[in-house]
């Protein structure tokens, strides 16, 4: 067995163990945790080795079944996809510890079904970042979406309705993407991204090309919950089972943003997208609006998890805006923010999962005095909150710095103002929670029964990955330099 297939095994091992979980997990629950954790641990190691290989030797091109592209399906592992593979593997691995615990509590007897979908979703995400084929990307996008619908619908209460809402919106997004790819196929006669990038500039069909680009971008924007198209996300993510939220919330939107970067850089090439000032200007304005509105909506929430879902919407605005600033700093900031935001969201959602595991709710009222009950969890929460606000040396600071520099370079002051505004709102949001959690009073003298309770920390099984994630926030923040110079810079197209 040679290392040529390693990156594919990163995908295949979770996929195969998904079916093993389904078969063996029905009879005995003891199989589930070793299978899930073992396969994801393999993926973490495999993706790290792949990243090291790609950084050392350059882009890997791989043909499935040895059918040569453009006829066969090509997998392309360049530095960006290798970085995303590591991110997905690490986030999924850390989240699965917490998910195993909370699913055991919330969905007793249905663990095997949950983790089958969970592992297929992870395999689909790996596929999304590996593929170099536009139609293959659509199929994998649907695999990840359908498994997510299933995971969300397993929640209680209105989860099924939220999931149905997401199905409608997600299917519209997928249709738009597919329509765009259909136009591309009619224009170029190929579905291979590199081939499309080669043929598209030689065609003299500006209107058709622009239509195709618009369809694909809007489709992806729906899938990533970019501001005016975000309405499905808060309900879907806050009604989902806690175990699903810890993995889906950090990864789905971020991987979709990656897909947008991939489509713009690799498939359409920046030369086709960015010279149209009206596209970039309106996208950056929409992003600024997304940031402001996401932050404002987050301010109005009474539940921590719901508040975080609106922050995700604001963060999607950061990344989309950064890309359409169309300069090196903006693009670097966006790609860096994909990594950082996944880790920050993971950290905060792990905190939410721990608190829900102990007290069943994360409403603001129930957070009073929680610092005394769950000190380690809340310390990690504070770190995650600092990263979201953008306090150095946590990772959130560095990507925001790049984004602000990019905004200044491009002269998009509205984006810079939106970023600063959102940081201030985040500070307000999180310090409100931290104040409640630490001093434990709403000021009205009620709810004292909550504050006077003894220590009741989350189980080790949930606490250890949380502490590790919080540590990663600082480690990634401090290693921003090497990360940008060795990995992300390689992806910035020439001429930026």
């Amino acid at each position, binding site marked *: *067995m040679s290392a040529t297939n390693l990156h594919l*095994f990163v995908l*295949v091992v979770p996929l*195969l163990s998904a*079916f093993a979980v389904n078969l063996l997990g029905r009879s005995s629950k003891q199989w589930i945790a070793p299978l899930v954790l073992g396969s994801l641990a393999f993926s973490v190691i495999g993706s790290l080795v792949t990243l090291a290989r790609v950084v050392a030797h350059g882009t890997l091109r*791989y043909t499935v*079944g040895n059918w040569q592209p453009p006829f066969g399906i090509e997998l392309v592992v360049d530095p960006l996809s290798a970085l995303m593979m590591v991110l997905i593997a690490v986030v999924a691995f850390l989240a699965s510890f917490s998910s195993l615990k909370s699913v055991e509590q919330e969905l007793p007897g249905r663990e095997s079904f949950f983790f089958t979908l969970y592992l297929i979703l992870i395999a689909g995400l790996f596929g999304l970042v590996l593929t170099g084929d536009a139609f293959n990307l659509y199929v994998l996008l649907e695999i990840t979406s359908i498994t997510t619908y299933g995971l969300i619908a397993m929640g209680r209460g209105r989860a099924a309705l939220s999931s149905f809402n997401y199905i409608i919106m997600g299917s519209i997004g997928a249709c738009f993407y597919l329509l765009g790819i259909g136009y591309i196929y009619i224009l170029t006669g190929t579905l291979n991204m590199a081939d499309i990038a080669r043929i598209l500039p030689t065609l003299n069909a500006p209107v058709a090309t622009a239509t195709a680009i618009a369809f694909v971008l809007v489709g992806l924007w729906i899938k990533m919950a970019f501001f005016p198209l975000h309405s499905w996300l808060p309900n879907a993510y806050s009604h989902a089972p806690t175990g699903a939220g810890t993995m889906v919330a950090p990864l789905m939107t971020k991987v979709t943003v990656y897909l947008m970067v991939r489509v713009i850089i690799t498939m359409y090439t920046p030369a086709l997208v960015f010279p149209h000032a009206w596209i970039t200007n309106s996208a950056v304005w929409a992003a600024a609006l997304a940031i402001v509105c996401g932050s404002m909506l987050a301010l109005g929430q009474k539940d921590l998890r719901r508040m975080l879902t609106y922050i995700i919407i604001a963060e999607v605005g950061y990344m989309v805006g950064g890309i359409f600033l169309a300069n090196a700093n903006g693009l670097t900031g966006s790609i860096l923010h994909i990594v950082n935001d996944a880790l920050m969201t993971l950290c905060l959602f792990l905190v939410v999962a721990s608190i829900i595991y102990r007290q069943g709710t994360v409403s603001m009222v129930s957070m009073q005095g929680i610092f005394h009950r769950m000190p380690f969890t809340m310390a990690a929460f504070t770190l995650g909150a600092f990263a979201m606000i953008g306090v150095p040396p946590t990772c959130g600071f560095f990507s925001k710095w790049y984004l602000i520099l990019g905004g200044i370079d491009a002269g998009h002051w509205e984006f810079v103002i939106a970023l600063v505004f959102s940081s201030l709102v985040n500070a307000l949001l999180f310090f409100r929670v931290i104040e409640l959690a630490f001093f434990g009073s709403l000021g009205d003298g009620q709810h004292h029964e909550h504050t006077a309770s003894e220590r009741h920390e989350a189980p080790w099984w949930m606490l250890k990955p949380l502490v590790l994630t919080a540590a990663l926030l600082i480690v990634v923040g401090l290693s921003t330099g090497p990360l940008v110079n060795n990995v992300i810079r390689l992806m910035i197209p020439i001429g930026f």
Partner: protein
Amino acid sequence: MRDIHEHSAGEDLVIKTSVRLLVPFIQLFGLYVIVHGHYSPGGGFQGGVILGASFILLALAYDLKTSQDYMPIWANALLGNLGPVIYIGVGALCAIFGGLFLDYSALDVLIPLGPVEWRSFGIFLVEVGVGLAVMSIMLLLYWNLSSGGALDEGL
């Protein structure tokens, strides 16, 4: 509910008898479509749909229980998982034996048939996996939708 069923169209003797006679032939045709899929029209998906439809026909003409006598729930779950495992397993075996993923000619090391013959035989194995998965998922979808997820009484 039972007496309503006695008089409903689904319990008709003509329907029951013709379905009982038709189902073996439908299943045989499904298998034919699967095994000939790699060199003539047809394939795993189409054959799997025909196989699944044969069990759904049983469930429609009789009831859910009858179709579950022919295809027990555990066997359906087993086959549904086995299908993808065959597909992915064949692909992974190719990669393990020195080729690329799903490059069936690499399996020549395992049983020397010649790379060309293996390409044909490999796609056949994959089609069998697809057929099993499609059949059991179709049936499971019908069972779940018609009984509200309880897999017992149904239409």
